[in-house]
């Protein structure tokens, strides 16, 4: 009987020691990211039969160190994390554009107004060289503004591309980590008890949550307990202990947009999954580029090239101080055409020129030459236009004239009509020596003639210069669009942050460590431990009494 009591007390000591150790582990990890609190689950040991009297209790043992974890909440947390990651990446970048696009000291409208102010000065004093030089000087400032805006947008593009590269590198590191953790969890399950290492599983869940920050993923747990991770559209990233590498390249259209490539494990060929990447920071960067950066840069370029062309055209119908036809004041930057690296070797450069500046849309286009005709996709609206049979090589669309002479079936081209127009805009007349060449007069040889200058001044308010009206109308439209997108992104990311906080709090309510609770547990286990120790002491005294009696 007394041996049984001693053994039972020792089982209590051991069990409470382990409970205390678990509590201590919880306290130590109170600040560990992704940690799920653990508790030692106690069960009675198998009882001993004492015949007719029934069974005698035989103490306690730790059945399981349980991880307090909720699959549903974790999945919800990962989804919210992906959405928040996307909004955060998008919001940070669009806020940068929001910061400078309407800054009066840096943006186009002020300089544009000063330029037209100088034209009015020319109207008032058409033969003055000084007034003409002042006009060219404000033209130079305006060109500078276009260049500055474009440079800032280029810097943001570089930054976004770098962030995408970092994100893809992080995704690769995390998927490799997940594959490794799958293996280690499996190993721990086989060597230890059936549930496997709690801490390794926490690490695996944390890696998955970090991955969700970068890209939206779906999780499929197989019957061995492996985490199989897929993109939201079903491209496998992690299968058991194997991960598939992502890459980022502009190989198809050199100098064009970076595309996300997936190289399946053990394979050399990679597939383009750009359109299947959504959510997370990577999704946010792509959304920013497609929805904000490209349209804004294209639209600013469109305003620049239409302005340059229309001012030039008006100047060239006039006459300068020497009675010669007026000179062009600005360069008119050409369209950007990128031929696919996979095009036939015989394919010559194709021609894409602006035929009607007022009809330009600010979209980029992708051209695919097929056996049944030329397919042109507007990359902003996803609208597809098809031109004629295979023989149709010359056509016009959205103010652009295309000439595809010499192309072969299978060729494709990326057209960015006005992407680099704002950065490519230059002043063609020398500020000092070019002054006389401004065509202010409508009739040759009349130095006091300001009629053409007056027509130039009228271009400021002409409502047919661009699709959205005047140059400033079109610029205001860009400002308004950036403002609306930023505002809604501010609201969305605030709401999503709030939602994420709520889901995190729900997850923490289940899995997080509460120090007061642990302190209470410490006391409980300590008391139980002391009680068990006391039992041992009493058993000993009992023995002593017995031995003394026998002596």
């Amino acid at each position, binding site marked *: 009987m007394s041996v049984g009591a001693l053994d039972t007390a020792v089982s209590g000591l051991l069990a409470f020691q382990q409970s205390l150790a678990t509590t201590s582990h919880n306290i130590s990890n*109170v*600040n560990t990211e992704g940690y799920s*609190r653990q508790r030692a689950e106690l069960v009675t040991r198998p009882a001993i039969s004492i015949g007719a009297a029934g069974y005698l209790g035989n103490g306690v043992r730790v059945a399981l160190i349980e991880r307090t974890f909720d699959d549903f909440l974790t999945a919800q947390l990962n989804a919210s994390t992906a959405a928040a990651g996307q909004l955060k990446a998008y919001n940070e970048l669009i*806020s940068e554009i*929001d*910061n400078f*696009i*309407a800054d*009066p000291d840096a943006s186009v*409208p002020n300089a544009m*107004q000063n330029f*037209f*102010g100088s034209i*009015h*000065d020319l*109207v*008032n*004093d*058409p*033969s*003055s060289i000084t007034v003409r030089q002042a006009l060219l000087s404000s033209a130079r400032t305006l060109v500078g503004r276009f260049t500055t805006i474009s440079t800032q947008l280029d810097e943001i593009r570089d930054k976004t591309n770098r962030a995408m590269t970092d994100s893809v590198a992080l995704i690769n590191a995390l998927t490799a980590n997940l594959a490794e953790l799958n293996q280690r969890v499996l190993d721990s399950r086989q060597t230890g008890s059936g549930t496997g290492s709690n801490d390794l599983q926490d690490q695996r869940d944390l890696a998955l949550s970090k991955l969700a920050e970068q890209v939206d993923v779906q999780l499929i747990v197989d019957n061995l307990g492996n985490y199989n991770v897929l993109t939201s559209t079903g491209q496998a990233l992690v299968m058991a202990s194997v991960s598939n590498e992502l890459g980022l390249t502009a190989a198809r259209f050199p100098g064009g947009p970076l595309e996300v490539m997936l190289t399946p494990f053990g394979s050399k060929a990679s597939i383009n999954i750009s359109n299947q990447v959504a959510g997370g920071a990577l999704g946010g960067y792509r959304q920013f580029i497609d929805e904000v950066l490209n349209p804004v840069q294209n639209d600013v370029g469109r305003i620049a090239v239409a302005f340059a062309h229309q001012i030039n055209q008006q100047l060239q119908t006039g006459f300068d101080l020497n009675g010669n036809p007026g000179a062009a004041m600005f360069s008119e930057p050409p369209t950007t055409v990128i031929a696919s690296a996979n095009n036939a070797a015989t394919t010559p450069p194709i021609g894409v020129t602006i035929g009607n500046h007022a009809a330009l849309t600010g979209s980029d286009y992708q051209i695919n030459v097929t056996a049944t005709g030329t397919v042109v996709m507007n990359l902003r609206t996803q609208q597809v236009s098809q031109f004629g049979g295979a023989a149709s090589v010359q056509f016009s669309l959205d103010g652009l004239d295309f000439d595809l002479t010499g192309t072969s079936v299978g060729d494709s081209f990326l057209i960015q009509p006005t992407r680099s127009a704002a950065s490519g805009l230059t002043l063609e007349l020398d500020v000092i020596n070019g002054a006389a060449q401004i065509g202010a*007069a409508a*009739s040759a040889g*009349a*130095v*006091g*003639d*300001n*009629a053409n200058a*007056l027509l130039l*001044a*009228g271009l400021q*308010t002409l409502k047919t210069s661009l699709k959205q009206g005047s140059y*400033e109308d079109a*610029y*205001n439209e860009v*400002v*308004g669009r*950036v*403002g*609306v997108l*930023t*505002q809604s992104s501010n609201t969305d990311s605030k709401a999503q942050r709030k939602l994420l*906080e709520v889901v*995190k*709090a*729900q997850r*923490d*309510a289940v*899995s*997080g*460590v*509460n*120090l*007061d*609770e642990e*302190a*209470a547990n*410490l*006391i409980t286990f300590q008391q139980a431990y002391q009680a068990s120790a006391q039992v041992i002491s009493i058993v000993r005294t009992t023995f002593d009494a017995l031995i003394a009696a026998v002596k």
Partner: protein
Amino acid sequence: MRIRISTLGMANQTINSMLNQHSQIANTQEQLALGVKLVRPSDSPPAAVRALILDESLKQKEQYQANIDMARGRLAQEETVLDSIGDVLLRVHDLGVQSLNAPLGASDRDAIAGEMRHLLGEIGNLANTTTATGEYLFAGLQSKTKPYSGDPTNGAYTYNGDSGRRHTAIGSGYNLNDNDPGDAVFTVVAPATDPNAAPAAAENIMNLVFQFAEHLSADQPDTYDLARIQQSLEAISTARSSAGARLAALDQQETLTAKLTTDEKSLLSQTRDLDYTEAISRLNQETTALQAAQQAYSKVQKLSLFNYL
């Protein structure tokens, strides 16, 4: 109601709430520092665009006002010069009356002719007046070409300018003519009853005065000469009232521009400028909220069962 809250979660929640308060305070501070409520387009996209449009419109009105000032300068100068020419012509007219009416001898008439030639010189100079920017006032679009050659001794005044008129924009879609070419101001078409004039011949005022002086020098006074001076006076007077009418139009447009400018400025201010009272009381509220969050944090942080173990 959550049953358990994790220690880390509780700390994070309080920290997040303080971060939010900080960012709100930073926003309000930025608005106060700049004195505007629209710092970025996203603060209110419609208002931001409205502010840009108003800015543009005000800039244009400023430009129209500058154009009005320039046009007023030119037209006022033209008016003054035409006034002077009118005065001189009146003197010529007086001399003409005197030469026709009084019983004068050849030498008297020659003396009057001499004075007339002197006055003609003045008219010639006035017709060749230049503006503040160095352009000839009456040369049409040939503003760097001296409009009238010829001199009081030999006559033969010829117009070297052209018939071009200049305009300047003084309002949206409102272009105003701010010069009158010499051939429009100084040319008189002789009436058909004038026996000495070729049918419908147009002649400039200077040559008419010269012709009068020539007739007087030759002691052959011609009553039609006086009629022609009378006609010249009328021509100058017509040109002067035309310039005056345009000056009046400028004044009207200026009043309109000023009124629109005031309206738009007040609208722009409402759209963009900060209501300081509101912003400062908002800042007070936000700092109070932050202080409360900080106090709550420090109080809650002190609570721990471990303190009692």
